[in-house]
């Protein structure tokens, strides 16, 4: 049987995902943007909507985390630290494979080669890997500064 605290935490997690999806799809419906519209309005509105969706998700995640007891919180921290760092480490292998033209090698018809394509891939990868690492460093410094 699922315990009350776990059930409540899952409700917050569902609210986080549902709310974020509603914000992003809502903005898309309201503005009628399509993937072909590339302009200042689309970039700014979608970026701001994502910021709001992420703020909502983070708030719900914090509420879910606070509902858990210390054992469950420790499990989450352990999984994020070791699972997350392992995932980042393993992604470097994928980065090298794709960056060296691995997808083109596997499926030349659908994955081209080119400087621009590699640059876009590089930016996407570094954004995904750089933000968690910057967050880790910021939290580590905050801990050091406040706990001495």
């Amino acid at each position, binding site marked *: 049987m699922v315990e009350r605290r*776990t059930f409540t935490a899952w409700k917050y997690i569902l609210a986080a995902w549902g709310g974020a999806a509603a914000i992003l799809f809502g903005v898309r419906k309201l503005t009628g943007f399509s993937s072909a519209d590339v302009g200042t309005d689309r970039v700014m509105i979608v970026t701001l909507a994502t910021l709001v969706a992420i703020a909502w998700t983070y708030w719900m995640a914090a509420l879910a985390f606070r509902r858990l007891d210390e*054992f*469950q919180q420790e499990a989450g921290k352990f999984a994020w630290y070791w699972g997350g760092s392992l995932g980042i480490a393993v992604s470097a292998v994928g980065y090298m494979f794709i960056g060296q033209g691995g997808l083109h090698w596997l499926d030349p018809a659908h994955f081209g080669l080119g400087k621009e394509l590699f640059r876009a891939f590089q930016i996407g990868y570094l954004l995904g890997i750089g933000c968690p690492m910057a967050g880790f460093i910021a939290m580590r410094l905050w801990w050091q500064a406040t706990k001495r």
Partner: protein
Amino acid sequence: MKNRLKVLRAERDWSQADLAERLDVSRQSINAIETGKYDPSLPLAFRIARLFAMPIETIFQDD
């Protein structure tokens, strides 16, 4: 770290769920503490000691 939680709980005829409710933690936590797979934080150890009206060191012993 060893502990006498299982014995103390059994003496009172409490289930893991009963103890979990009294300590406001999950049943998983009680099971993990009893089996020595998880050492509770100091605040939780104090709550356990208060519940059983015993000093912490009589419930938890260093290996």
